[in-house]
C-alpha cells in the first residue's frame, strides 16, 4: 500500500516536471547572446567555478561527465558535460540560463550568484569541453588544465602512519609509452561515510613523484580502525576505492558499562544502593526491635 502510494507520488511529480520543462522558456538577453567569457579562462577561475558548482548546481546536475549527448533523463537535470550543450550554447547564453532559469525546473540564480561567479561557473563548465576556444576578447592564454600529458594507469592509496597522512600514488605512461610518475595531476580523495562523502582533498595536484599526501587529522575510524576511502585523478580518468587501517580502532564508551541509573541491577549506582540498603535495613531493624518488645511483654506474663 505504502509503496504504491510512493509510486503514484513519484509518477505525478515526474509528469509535473516534464510538463514544467515543456513549458520552459529560456530567456536570452540580446546583448549577451554572443558574449564571451568575461573572466580569464585559467586554473584559478576554473577551481573557483567548481566550488560554486558543487554548492549550487551539483544537487541537480550531479557530476559532470564528458559525453556526446545528454545522458540523463528527468527528474535529473542534464549532464552539462555533453558536447551538444557545450557546442550549441555561447558563454553568454549559458550566463543568461543561469541568471534567469527557464521558469520550470531550472531556477533563476540572478541574485544568488554574482555575475563574476556566474562567469567562473561557465569557465568550469568549459573545462569539460576540449574544443572550447578561448576568446580573443579575454586576451589571455588559458593555463593548461592538466600539466601531465600522457595516460594514467592507476591511482593507489596508502597510509603513512609516521606522519598520519593519506598518500595517493599515481602511475602512468607518457606519450612515448614510458612509465612515468605523473606530475601535476588533480586528485580528489573522499572518506566514505553515512549520508554523503567527506572530502579530504578536492583537486589538489600531485608532486614530482606522482604523489599527493593529505594529513588525516584525528578522523574517527570504525571499531577495527579502518576507514573507507574513494579517490580519483584527472576527472575520473583513474579511480579507486580502498579500505585502510589507520588506527587501533575507535573505542566508544558503551553507556551500559559502569554503574548507572539505567543499568541492570548488578550495576546499581553505589550511592543509590547504599542509601536504599541503609534506609531499608535500619527501618526493618526498628520493626524487628518492636516485635522483640512484644516478646518481652509476653515474657512478663503471669505464670
Amino acid at each position, binding site marked *: 500500500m505504502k509503496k504504491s502510494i510512493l509510486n503514484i507520488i513519484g509518477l505525478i511529480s515526474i509528469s509535473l516536471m516534464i510538463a514544467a520543462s515543456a513549458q520552459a522558456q529560456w530567456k536570452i538577453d540580446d546583448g549577451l547572446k554572443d558574449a564571451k567569457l568575461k573572466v580569464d579562462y585559467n586554473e584559478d577561475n576554473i577551481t573557483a567555478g567548481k566550488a560554486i558548482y558543487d554548492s549550487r548546481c551539483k544537487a541537480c546536475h550531479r557530476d559532470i561527465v564528458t559525453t556526446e549527448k545528454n545522458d540523463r533523463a528527468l527528474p535529473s537535470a542534464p549532464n552539462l558535460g555533453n558536447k551538444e550543450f557545450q557546442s550549441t550554447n555561447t558563454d553568454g547564453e549559458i550566463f543568461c540560463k543561469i541568471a534567469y532559469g527557464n521558469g520550470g525546473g531550472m531556477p533563476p540564480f540572478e541574485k544568488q550568484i554574482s555575475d563574476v561567479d556566474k562567469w567562473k561557473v561557465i569557465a568550469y563548465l568549459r573545462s569539460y569541453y576540449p574544443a572550447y576556444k578561448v576568446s580573443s576578447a579575454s586576451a589571455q592564454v588559458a593555463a593548461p588544465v592538466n600539466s601531465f600529458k600522457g595516460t594514467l594507469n592507476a591511482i593507489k592509496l596508502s597510509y603513512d602512519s609516521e606522519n598520519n597522512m593519506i598518500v595517493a600514488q599515481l602511475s602512468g605512461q607518457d606519450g612515448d609509452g614510458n612509465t612515468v610518475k605523473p606530475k601535476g595531476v588533480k586528485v580528489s580523495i573522499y572518506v566514505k561515510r553515512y549520508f554523503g562523502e567527506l572530502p579530504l582533498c578536492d583537486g589538489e595536484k600531485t608532486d614530482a613523484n606522482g604523489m599527493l599526501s593529505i594529513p588525516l587529522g584525528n578522523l574517527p575510524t570504525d571499531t577495527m580502525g579502518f576507514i573507507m576511502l574513494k579517490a580519483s585523478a584527472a576527472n575520473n580518468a583513474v579511480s579507486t576505492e580502498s579500505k585502510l587501517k589507520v588506527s587501533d580502532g575507535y573505542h566508544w564508551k558503551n553507556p551500559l558499562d559502569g554503574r548507572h*541509573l*539505567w*543499568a*541492570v*541491577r548488578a550495576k*546499581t*549506582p553505589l550511592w*543509590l*544502593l547504599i542509601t*536504599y540498603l541503609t534506609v*531499608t535495613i535500619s*527501618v*526493618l531493624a*526498628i*520493626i524487628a*526491635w*518492636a*516485635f522483640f*518488645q*512484644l516478646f*518481652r*511483654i*509476653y515474657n*512478663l*506474663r*503471669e505464670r
Partner: protein
Amino acid sequence: MSEIIKQNDEKIMTKITKDLTHHLTTRPLGFKLWIGFLLTFIAVAIWAYGIQFEKGLGVTGMRDYVSWGLYIASFVFFVAVALVGMLISATVGLLKQKWIVPVSRVAEMIALAFVLMAGVIIVVDMGRPDRLLNVFIYGRFQSPIIWDITVVQVYILISFLLLFLPMLPDLAIIRNHMKGDLPKWQWKMYNILSLGWVGTPQQYKILHSTVRVLLILIVPVALGIHTVTSWLSAMTLRAGWDSTIFGPYYVTGAFVAGAGAVAVALYFIRRFYHLEEYITDYHFDKLGQLMVLVALVYLYFNLNEFWVPGFKMKTADAKHLHTLFSLHGEYGVMFYLTQMFGLILPIIFGLFRRFRKPFPMMIIGIALVVGAWFKRVIIIIPTLIHAYLPIQNVPESFHEYDPTGIEITITLGVIAVAVLIVSLLAKFFPVIPIWEIAEEKGVDIERDL
C-alpha cells in the same frame, strides 16, 4: 479514703468496659446482612478475577496506551487512605492532641486494611501473577517500583504493630472480665492475642516506649510510601506527571482522603455501637477542623499542579490539560465535579461549625472519599492517553480507555475487601481504647487490673 476512690474507680471502669466491649458480644441482623452484602460483592469479584486470570488482561479495558487503568488508580487511592493512620496517630498524636484518643484506633484499622489492599490490587493488575516473585529476584534497585514495594511492606508491618500494641491492655481486660459473655473461640482468641498482659509497670513502660518509637518511625515511612507512589508517575517523562511537586501533592491529597474515611467510619461505629458518649460532637468538630486544614493545603497544591502548567500551556501539557479543563474534553466533567465535590465544597462547608456535626461530616466524608478515588483516576489515566510519541499502527480504540464490566467488578470487589476488613476489625476488637479512656477519666489502671 483510698477505698472510696478504688470503689469509684471500679465503678467507672466497669461502665467503660461494658460500653466499649458490648459490641463484641452481640451479632445483630444488620451486621450479618452487611457482611453478607460485602461477601456477595467479593464472590462476584472473585468470579470476575477467575475470568481475568484465565484469559489475561485483555478482558480489561487496558491497552497499549492506557496500561494503568482503574487498578493502579485504586492502588494510589488505597495508599492514600492508608496514610490516615500516620496523620491521626502520629502527626496529631505527637502534638499531644487529646481528642484523637477515641479516633486513633479506627484510623489504624482503616490504615491496615487499605494498605493490605494496596498490595493486593497490584497483584490483580498483573497479567501473570505467577511471575510475582520475579519482582524480587530481578527487580532493579534503581526502579521506583522496588522502592514502592519495599515501603508498602514496611508500612503494613508498622500499621499492624501500631494497631496491635496499644490494644494489648484492652485484650487483657476482655480476657479477664468477659470470659462468660463470649463464645469460647472468641475468648481464646483474646487470650492468645493479649500475650499474657497483666499490666505491670514494666509492661506499660515497654508498651509506651515501643509505641512512641513506632509513632516517630511511621512519619517518614508514611511520607515515603506516598512520595514513592507519586514517583512511580513523576519519574516518568509524561505530560501531566512531569511535576516536581508530585510528592507533597500526593501526601496532602492522602490526608484529605483519610480524614474523610475516618469521618465516615466514626459516624457508623458511633451509631451502631451506641458510643455517642465517647465519640461526641466535639470529636467530629475537631476532625472537621483537621479536614479543612489538610484540604486547604491540598487545594494549594492543586492550584500549583494545574494552574502553573495551565498558564504556560506547553504543547504536550496543553493537549493533556485540554481534556481536563474543557467541558468537551474527555475528562472535563469528571475533573470539575471531582474538584467541586471532593475539595471545594467540603472546605466551604467545613468552615461552618454547624456542618462539623456527625451527620454532615459523614456526608462530607463520603464526598471526600469518592472524590479522592475519582481524583486518582484523573491523575493516572488522561496522561497515559497523551504519550509524547504516539504508538504506531494501533487500532483507533486503543486511544481511549473504557473500563470493562469485569475490571469494574474486580475493583469494587477489592474495595469491598478493604471495607470488610475494617468492619470485622471494628466488630471483633474494641474500637475505642478502653485503658486510654479510663486513664483520661482518672482511673489508676495499673492498679485496677
